[in-house]
């Protein structure tokens, strides 16, 4: 395993269940309306090699509200465009005085590479198809606002699991706490091998089967361009896998509907479902702030 600086957050897979609970408890004590200046004088670099709205803004708000200074580096307009390597970029930011690096990168494992060579905490804000740990934590936080515990909870994750770092992180987290996860989608998006990711995961090709009696429905964005050249056509996909009000009725009455965003209304779900009372999609975004406050506070050793 990668030797990373204390406080780094590289993946959910290698995080102990106790650490996850610690982070969730810490997040509950974070009040974005009345934040404590835990990071006063700290410099947090947001190093984003990919576009992002939610993750970037909520890390930035989280850091700034606790008194940290933030610096945003994006691929365009920086020396990354001139061909500077990831590690050289990391060394440069360290030299400028960064106390932590929040990294979003299109390549799986990029945060591990950075963490293995730099002595400040590295926080994975999404790496390729690998993991998106802060999203899994805010999803867990959101679930626990509505459900008593993870153990025995039925969770259906629907859509393009193969390309999804959100799904991988969610599976690891839910599995660690004994939830029963059902992955649902066509074979191109939900290959058989997905069931090997963690204990307690099963697959189905039928949305009705995945949704029936479930407590949580997690929908994933389907990129139209990824359907190109696949065996399944867009219309077929919508016909078989779109979350509609009728299909939602198969779930438990108190089931919640989640989506990491960006939502494509009319594709993976109807507008009605996105806006229905069971939808917690907007809450997820809001919960991103206290959860990322907790992640940053832990990174800087201020987890009090």
């Amino acid at each position, binding site marked *: *395993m*990668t030797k990373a600086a204390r406080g780094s957050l590289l993946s959910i*897979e290698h995080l102990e269940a106790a650490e996850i609970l610690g982070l969730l408890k810490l997040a509950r004590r974070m009040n974005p309306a009345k934040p404590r200046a835990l990071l006063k004088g700290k410099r947090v670099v947001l190093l984003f090699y990919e576009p992002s709205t939610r993750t970037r803004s909520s890390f930035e708000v989280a850091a700034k509200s606790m008194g940290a200074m933030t610096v945003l580096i994006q691929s365009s307009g920086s020396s990354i465009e001139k061909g500077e390597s990831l590690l050289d970029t990391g060394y440069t930011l360290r030299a400028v005085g960064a106390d932590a690096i929040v990294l979003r990168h299109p*390549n799986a494992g990029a945060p591990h590479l950075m963490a293995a060579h730099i002595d400040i905490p590295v926080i994975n804000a999404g790496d*390729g198809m690998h993991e998106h740990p802060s999203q899994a934590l805010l999803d867990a936080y959101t679930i626990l606002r509505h459900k008593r515990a993870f153990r025995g909870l039925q969770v259906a994750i629907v859509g393009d699991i193969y390309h999804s770092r959100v799904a991988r992180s969610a599976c690891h987290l839910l599995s660690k706490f004994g939830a029963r996860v059902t992955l649902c989608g066509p074979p191109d998006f939900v290959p058989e091998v997905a069931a090997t990711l963690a204990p307690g995961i099963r697959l189905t090709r039928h949305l009705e089967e995945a949704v029936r009696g479930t407590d949580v429905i997690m929908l994933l964005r389907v990129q139209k361009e990824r359907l190109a050249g696949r065996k399944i056509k867009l219309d077929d996909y919508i016909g078989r896998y779109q979350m509609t009000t009728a299909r939602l009725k198969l779930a438990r009455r108190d089931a919640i509907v989640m989506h990491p965003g960006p939502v494509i209304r009319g594709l993976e779900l109807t507008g009605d479902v996105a806006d229905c009372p069971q939808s917690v999609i907007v809450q997820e975004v809001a919960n991103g702030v206290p959860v990322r406050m907790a992640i940053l506070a832990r990174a800087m050793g201020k987890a009090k």
Partner: protein
Amino acid sequence: MDPASRIDAPMDVLLRDGHVAEIAPPNKTRGGADEKFDARGLIVAPGFIDLHVHLREPGQSHKETIATGTAAAAAGGFTSVCCMPNTSPVVDSPEWVNWIRQPERGAVVNVFPAAAATHHSKGAVLTDFRRLQEAGAVAVTDDGRPILDEAVMREALRAGAQLNLPVIQHAEDARVTAHCFMNEGPTSFRLGLRGMTVAAEAEVVDRDVQLAQMTGGRLHIAHLSTAEALKPVRRAKRAKVRVTCEITPHHFTLIDENVGDYNTNFKMNPPLRSAFDREAILVALADGTVDAIATDHAPHALHEKQVEFERAPFGVTGLETALGLAITQLHRGHKAPLARIVELFTAGPARVLDLRGRGTLARGSFADVTIFDPKKRWTFDAAKSRSKSRNTPFDGLPLTGKVVATIVAGKIVHRES
């Protein structure tokens, strides 16, 4: 120990004028020697031959040179290496084949170049096999890339057949492995990396075996890595089709899970496969399906490998660890006789490339000798490698079996201090 001559006994070997002058029971040689090498307790074998190395010249001397690569070969017990043509520029002309063989390159072991099978290794237009062979090429290949076009591969085998020149295939259906960086399976899924399927290798091998049968050409499968690809090779051998294959030490030692947290020193092509594939490879090494152990020594500079896994170049070094891994894994781990291992390093590869007078210690053959201690325990330290590069997955690994001396044309080119 000379499997080609079925010799496995204490013997004296007399080398004279670059050749084996005599091989006889102890103190029974008729001629005298100016210099003696006391190899009691050690194995004296024909000089090892590596069918598959990347010496990176011309054009990529920051990774390796012919001088440093052959120094690493000598340290690993190899007296002959076959270097691949995927350099910069690609070795697709007699002039470049000739350039590699010049004494100025500073090779300390025999270098047998493989030339490109197609212009610029683009897989479209065949090179002039006859002129390449006359310049010293011992095989043709587009290694690093496959020859995918069926008509081109068929013509290559047909042209090779007329010259008795083997065509080496890098068996990978590159149409389905684009943007894939490791073996397809639970580990690639977990790491979020696109996987190369077993079929992408096996289907090319299967097709090429049929083409070899059709044309009578000599087909050699480089770095075979899957159980599925062994099937057509076995079938071909039973049908007496001229098909040979090689296995690398990393494929008989490691599996895809060893990639760990994106360690780029475990990234090569073909990728590390499943435990199931590794088991099948171990069986094939023992039962004679495999003709040779070849390292696919592929040096890369540190800054090239210290990048995101998906961006790192494929390849690992392997010349200095091959014998230790073979003895540790195959002999000690899986009870393969030492004579079989020696055969895979000597008579087997000599047969693949039809290198006359090499891979044996029979009287009259070249005075290429590898002397090793099969019981010596040691730990590989990449920092002390003779190669210019350090991209090995075996740094710090304890091994059993070490080269004591390497003799090329009667001269000691490496001696363990």
